[in-house]
């Protein structure tokens, strides 16, 4: 006798080529159009495969090929870069290597960001340097609707070790590209926090090239903004690379939070783990996760797993979850995926409350419990603390808007 309504589709297939419930895309992910030329990307109508979940009519000016709307003494977005000693901070013009060597725009948003960023921020961690403190890039949008373009190039030298936190607050119509080169044997963690105010629109392409035996972790945390649409992509420069793409999101009424990932297994004996978890509450809260994995012929002995779970806290919210797995070689160590969207389970609430725990605390326990495993994987204390606070604050909202039904 469970009150749980769970349209779970969980599936794991180590020999994924034997079938499964993942979608085999009509067109290989590898064939996606990529170009620096904005004109080659039409303004999306919403009927395109890549845009079918996005409310394109609400995107505002974010796809227009326009420079950043800076005014005298009043930039569209404030940037603050804090880099520990040893990290080089500079700029790169379009076409100035390594800019453009890893990231080629895959949609119109990334193309306009690239074209309209004349000086890309270039952060470089020298070889063998292990940073004790994170590199921070603080981006604060200074007005909803104002166009803002950004492109960052991040290089982690061979055997270096670094944590980079990219933090977005305020509001703007922001397109942001992040181009990441992880040197051989390097260990790099990139955290992208989307803590925007309500009016913000944010499109992003984060593209990483993972070196031989290197470890790359990308963590997307999306809490604020009207629309966030983030692509986190990875490919490998040699064998032995390890990529972990993590995401946590919490959507409220009126928010559209979309995360797409693409792991291009183009080298042998690499591993990838993609885990995104999200909660939704409120009318029209919307989340999308699309996880593409391509295992090419040359990617022998690789191992990949992707997982997306969504927790729907109230009626009227909707989560889409689409794993895509393309496998071109039979010689792999493992490939699997799982995806599910479930309603908040009132039985769990009842169980906890029947032990004296009040409703607010019981809800907090259940939702924190839902995120517990991914939070353990994140492993960056400042991010974990922020996230916990944010989850508690979000739940405060549900408590106010939802009178308790369990009493009486």
């Amino acid at each position, binding site marked *: *006798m469970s009150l749980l309504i769970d349209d779970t589709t969980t599936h794991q297939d180590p020999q994924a080529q034997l079938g499964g419930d993942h979608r085999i895309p009509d067109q290989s992910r590898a064939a996606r159009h990529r170009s620096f030329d904005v004109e080659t990307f039409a303004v999306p109508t919403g009927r395109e495969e890549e845009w079918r979940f996005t409310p394109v009519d609400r995107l505002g000016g974010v796809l227009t090929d326009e420079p950043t709307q800076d005014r005298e003494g009043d930039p569209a977005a404030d940037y603050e870069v804090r880099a520990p000693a040893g990290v080089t901070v500079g700029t790169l013009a379009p076409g100035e290597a390594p800019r453009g060597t890893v990231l080629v725009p895959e949609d119109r948003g990334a193309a306009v960001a690239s074209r309209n960023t004349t000086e890309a921020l270039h952060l470089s961690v020298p070889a063998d340097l292990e940073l004790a403190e994170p590199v921070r890039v603080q981006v604060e949008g200074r007005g909803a609707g104002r166009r803002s373009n950004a492109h960052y190039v991040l290089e982690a030298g061979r055997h270096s070790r670094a944590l980079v936190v990219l933090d977005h607050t305020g509001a703007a119509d922001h397109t942001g590209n992040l181009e990441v080169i992880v040197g051989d044997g390097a260990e790099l963690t990139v955290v992208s926090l989307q803590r925007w105010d309500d009016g913000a629109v944010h499109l992003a392409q984060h593209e990483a090239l993972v070196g031989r035996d290197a470890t790359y972790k990308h963590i997307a945390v999306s809490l604020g903004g009207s629309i966030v649409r983030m692509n986190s992509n990875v490919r490998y420069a040699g064998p032995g690379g390890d990529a972990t793409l993590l995401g946590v999101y919490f959507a409220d009424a009126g928010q559209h939070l979309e995360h797409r990932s693409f792991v291009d297994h183009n080298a042998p004996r690499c591993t990838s783990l993609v885990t995104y978890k999200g909660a939704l509450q409120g009318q029209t809260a919307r989340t999308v996760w699309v996880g593409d994995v391509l295992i090419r012929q040359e990617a022998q002995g690789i191992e990949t797993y992707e997982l997306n779970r969504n927790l729907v806290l109230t009626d009227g919210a909707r989560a889409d979850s689409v794993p895509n797995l393309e496998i071109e070689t039979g010689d792999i160590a493992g490939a699997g995926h799982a995806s599910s969207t479930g309603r908040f389970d009132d039985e769990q609430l009842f169980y*906890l409350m*029947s032990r*004296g*725990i009040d409703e607010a605390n019981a809800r907090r326990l259940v939702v924190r419990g*839902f995120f*517990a495993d991914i939070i353990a994987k994140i492993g960056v204390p400042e991010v974990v603390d922020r996230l916990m606070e944010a989850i508690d604050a979000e739940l405060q909202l549900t408590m106010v808007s939802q009178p308790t039904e*369990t009493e009486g």
Partner: protein
Amino acid sequence: MTTLEIRNLQVSVETDDTAKEILRGVDLTINSGETHAIMGPNGSGKSTLAYAIAGHPKYTVTGGEVLLDGEDVLAMGVDERARAGLFLAMQYPVEVPGVTVSNFLRTAKTAVDGEAPKLRTWVKDVRGAMEALRMDASFAERNVNEGFSGGEKKRHEILQLELLQPRIAILDETDSGLDVDALKVVSEGVNRVKENTGLGVMLITHYTRILRYIQPDYVHVFVGGRVAESGGRDLADRLEEEGYDRFLTAGV
């Protein structure tokens, strides 16, 4: 001394769009230190009685009252009932992913007592209660009921009974699905709490087996959503021999 009084309790359950009447006037009084066995066939409404007293939202009380020392239990929220001293060991305990047993127990203890337990004595109490129930220490770091075997779930319910120290406990088929060894361990746990705290117990069961280990003061036969007959231990012995047929054919 605590008294739980159930008077003419009527309860229905929402199914699709109709309300199905299940409890048709239950009368029962349980005092501290007393053990009342509720025995009845499947589907007679035993779990419904347990859930209704605990305040499960799926069950609607359509008549009657439940009083704890004169206080109106039905007016209390689910959590308030627990804080007032009621405890339900569930027939099917619920999994709570990502919440560890130790976190859960500490949160529940804090809620029931109104203050956080003293760390040192608490750790000792938890360890002692787990050892007594033959639960491995690693259990505390597992997620609540997640991947527990049937027996582990029941031990975990009794662990909570030992630690939360309620005044009246309803044990809903705590015996079902347990092998003899586990049944003994769990029964000893219940007897220990009874001895130490003067707990009043409503022991819901389908079989007489558990009554070898937990002595009932009263036995009630539960059929068709009400108490059909009450008696002492000997009534259980009769049921053991005759089954429930006599009550079923008597008609409802």
